[in-house]
């Protein structure tokens, strides 16, 4: 892996009010350097919002006109500290972001969403190279080779010149992973990237992602306790209203774990209990 110096990230004093309703207040959590941190919780609890704060993405959607939105106000009181403040119409949000290497996070993160977000008019290869296109980096043969190499490593070399509509949903999400890897950033933010896949494809993708994302600082948002157990070096559970965060849960062994391993059974029970999921009907 090329990136060995992925920073740790501390998000603190995060608060979010949506339509006068407090979703969370004074939350803090740390993404361990070079590790996968899973944020597990039911939908609507504000997991995605925490990810979007880290990525400085708009919180309340982009409104009617998608191309023109109010960006987050970003303050830098200290060199190692970033205060993000959103004041969109219904959303008031504050958070502090620190990185362990004191460098800003901006421009050092890659984002993988729930859907593949491949542009339908571009070939898979061009989609993988989208970041360079958007940053006006001239297209060079070495970059094409690099992109082809990444596509090969996710098993899509033969489909490089196909348009996304010719691919299955699993292949599309592997394409999205290839595009994320092409960005070659130390920090990866993943918002339920495998939730739209069928169980078999999802399992494959989890294994592949754990292998490809070694040494990177990863935030993986999920509502699937088994996914968290397979992939997370550490797991936080976000639940309640206003939401609060559990202490970090650190299962034994290295991801991708075999969730049928007996050593994980108590962790499965713990996660289900913390999510208030009843295990049997009685």
């Amino acid at each position, binding site marked *: 892996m090329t990136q060995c110096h992925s920073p740790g990230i501390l998000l603190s004093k995060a608060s979010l009010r949506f339509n006068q309703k407090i979703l969370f207040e004074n939350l803090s959590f740390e993404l361990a350097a070079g590790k996968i941190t899973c944020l597990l919780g039911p939908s609507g609890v504000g997991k995605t919002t925490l990810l979007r704060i880290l*990525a*400085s*993405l*708009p919180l309340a*959607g*982009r409104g*009617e*006109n*998608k*191309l*023109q939105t109010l960006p987050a106000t970003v303050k830098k009181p200290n060199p190692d500290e970033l205060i993000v403040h959103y004041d969109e119409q219904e959303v008031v949000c504050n958070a502090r972001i620190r990185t362990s290497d004191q460098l800003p996070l*901006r*421009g050092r*993160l*890659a*984002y993988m*969403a729930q*859907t593949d*977000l491949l*542009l339908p*008019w571009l070939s898979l290869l061009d989609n993988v190279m*989208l*970041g360079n*296109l*958007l*940053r*006006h980096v001239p297209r060079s043969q070495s970059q094409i080779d690099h992109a082809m190499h990444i596509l090969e490593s996710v098993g899509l070399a033969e489909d490089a010149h196909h348009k996304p509509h010719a691919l299955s949903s699993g292949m599309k999400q592997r394409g999205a992973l290839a595009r994320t890897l092409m*960005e070659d950033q130390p920090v990866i*933010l993943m918002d339920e990237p495998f939730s739209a896949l069928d169980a078999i494809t999802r399992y494959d993708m989890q294994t592949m992602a754990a292998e490809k994302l070694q040494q990177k600082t990863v935030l993986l948002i999920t509502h699937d306790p088994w996914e968290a157990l397979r992939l997370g070096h550490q797991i936080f559970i976000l639940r309640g209203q206003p939401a609060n965060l559990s202490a970090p849960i650190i299962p034994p062994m290295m991801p991708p774990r075999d969730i049928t391993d007996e050593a994980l059974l108590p962790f499965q029970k713990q996660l289900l209990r913390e999510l208030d999921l009843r295990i049997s009907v009685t």
Partner: protein
Amino acid sequence: MFVSRIQNFIINTGKTLLPLVFIVIVWQFIVVIDKLPPYILPAPLLVWHTLVNNVPLLFSQALPTAFESIIGLTLSVLVGMSGALIFTYFRLAREYLLPSLIISQALPTFAIAPLLVVWFGYGMASKIVTVMIMLFFPVTMTFYDGLIQVNENWLDLAQTMQATRWSALRYIALPAALPALASGLRLAASWAPLGAVIGEWVGASQGLGYLMLNSNARLQVDMMFAALIWLIALALLLFFVVDRGMRWLIKIR
């Protein structure tokens, strides 16, 4: 493969033409049975003769109309697309100008065409302006809708990739809005000759609209029909060119 494509083409053309042929036959029938005089309703055969015998006249009158349509259409596309971009990126323009622009569309172009002749003269300028007033709005609105409705998750992705405003527009919003723009342009292309003719009706010394008005005054209804057919052909030609061009652009985007 090739033969079956030719077959398909012939069958599809047949399907398109069949109702037209039927209408023409009924038309001829009515004229013959009712013994209608040609200054009320000329028989299709008479229109055909007029069409064939007056090719130089019709061509010379179609030329200015075609010129007005094409220039008007081109300018409408330029103004319309610029308008859409301005409304997309400038909130003040959107809040202050867009409502009055929509209200202005309630005003029929026909009603202000005489004014345009007063302001822009008897020549081609007033016709080009008429075409523009008719066409730029559908171009603006379809393109604007296409731009603002781009998938916001693509824009999120672009933002994390450090895209600039320009590159997000050029590589994401613009290609995404192309199909919407294409429907606006198709609409505009088929309306352009209509705009030119409306301008010519109000006051002109040449063009298909002028020819129609003149023929009408002399009860040469067959010539009116001949001019109409040229007008239809012009509209279809513009539509075809724009449609093909946009399909090509969508394919290579």
